[in-house]
């Protein structure tokens, strides 16, 4: 059967391309202008003189510190998630009984707990624990709120491992620990990479927990830096947009090289 081109769909996709491409053009082009060119020539025109000064200024405004903090938060969150979620998912898929299905239900319910809803008590708990204005105070709740989605994704992946494989391992007299290391983990690589992608994106882009739970310069993360920048120098659009570009650069590089894996990860996650 021959395929005819679908003009209607093609047109629709071009409309969306314009909707996505246009703001990205304005974003990118304004990072290379001077402040005065932005206000005199307007955001749409191509600037007469291109400059990298905005990027340099971002770093003297403390972007390096924000960046480092964000890296620390992201790496820690991914580490916590990788430490606790695989054993949990393994137990959910393989252990039997009412208790484990109750545990699974708790995590499913957790899917719908929005961070906004618990931010007041979180502020209370974190202050009482002495983690206020400390990166650990951002890391712990961020990781906790990644758990439900990660658990859902990973149990999905682990369910695809057939019972014959478990039987074969059992025949060898393998302990649950060995089954976990030699069968379950290697075979759920896809799920694990989805989990890493999701947790890393959540941590890298997280805003609410840092907004509420930190206050000083030394614990500021990138998203908070962007927010503060806007409230303090709202008119310096080139400075702001270059910071935005810097904030998404690491993710964008990963996207360029591992688009398929990243998109599949996000597809599997499907969540917020």
């Amino acid at each position: 059967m021959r395929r005819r081109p679908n003009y209607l769909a093609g047109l629709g996709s071009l409309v969306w391309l314009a909707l996505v491409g246009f703001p990205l053009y304005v974003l990118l082009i304004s990072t290379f202008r001077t402040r005065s060119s932005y206000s005199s020539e307007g955001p749409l025109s191509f600037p007469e003189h291109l400059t990298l000064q905005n990027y340099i200024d971002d770093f003297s405004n403390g972007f390096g510190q924000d960046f480092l903090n964000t890296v620390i938060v992201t790496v820690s969150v991914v580490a916590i998630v990788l430490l606790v979620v695989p054993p949990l998912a393994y137990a959910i898929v393989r252990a039997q009984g009412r208790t484990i299905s109750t545990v699974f239900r708790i995590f499913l319910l957790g899917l719908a707990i929005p961070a906004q809803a618990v931010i007041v008590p979180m502020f209370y708990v974190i202050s009482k624990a002495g983690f206020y204005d400390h990166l650990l105070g951002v890391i712990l709740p961020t990781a906790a709120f990644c758990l439900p989605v990660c658990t859902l994704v990973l149990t999905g992946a682990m369910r695809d491992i057939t019972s014959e494989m478990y039987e074969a391992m059992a025949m060898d007299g393998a302990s649950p620990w060995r089954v976990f290391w030699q069968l379950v983990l290697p075979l759920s690589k896809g799920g694990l990479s989805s989990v890493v992608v999701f947790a890393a994106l959540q941590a890298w882009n997280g805003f609410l927990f840092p907004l509420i739970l930190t206050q000083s310069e030394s614990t500021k993360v990138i998203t908070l830096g962007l927010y503060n920048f806007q409230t303090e120098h709202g008119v310096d659009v080139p400075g702001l947009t270059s910071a935005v570009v810097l904030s998404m650069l690491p993710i964008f590089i990963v996207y360029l090289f591992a688009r398929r894996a990243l998109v599949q990860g996000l597809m599997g996650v499907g969540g917020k």
Partner: protein
Amino acid sequence: MTALSFVSGSGRRLRAGRRAGVGVTRPGLAWAVPATVFFLLFALVPLVLVAVLSFTSWDGVDSPRFNGLANWTKLLHDPVMTQSVWLTLVLTLAGVLVQTPVSILLGVWAAGHQRNRAVLSAIFFVPLLLSATAISVVWRAILDPNFGVPSQLPWLFGDGNLMGSQSGAIAVLTFVGMWQWTPMHALLYQGGARAIPQVLYQAAAIDGAGKVRQFIHITLPQLRNTMITSVILMLVGGLTTFDTVLILTQGGPGTDTTNSAYYMYQQAFKSFDFGSGSAIALVLVVVATLISLAVVRLSGYDKMRSTSEGL
């Protein structure tokens, strides 16, 4: 600590397998302990605390003091609270109505075989990578009435002060929400559309059905389950929209775009009335939980306990 709790897992090891007469190795409950304890501490304990705090008066510095139903009666008579609930519903519904058709079309398109699809869809999904903060600050700069794009295109935007009126601000929030979330929902639909058996389309083509009729009579009905999941995610997300409101409109003009999540933030962290903030939060929790129960029911997640466990 985690390593220790795994050890007890090997306790109940071999159980007679029914089919092959082989011992089956199963992990013990201990494997679930670290994650569960962590989750209870940082997600569920705060959830219980929010209920407790909603019956107290607390300024964030002294200890919370029990004050009965005071926060609740105050909120019941607070016009801003009533307005914020109404506004939350409007924003949520507008989000679902705008995002659903766009993401279905985009997802189905991305699942097909059009030319240049790979390149285009690579660009399409860029908003997925940006934080809500970045998206909001960029759109705020772009839509700025004095220095942004509207000032350059007066034939399109009039006086350009889009966020100066309630309807304009709601439109902007809905549009930016669409820009931010459509790619993710399109991905869901792309996966859903890929799973539709091609036989259905071939049969329809033999019967002489065109592209549009195939879309209406095959694609849409087949995407029903994806649609349920996607819409429910949009509902929960819409109810708790916060970052975009904070950055784009600060709830304004006046309190015209103050939705419940933003009002909660204002009450707690700006007016230092953490008791009222907790009460608003509790309302959000209850509504979101009801929706999540619906997710679990409708999607059947709770029934897929095991596809590979016939041991």
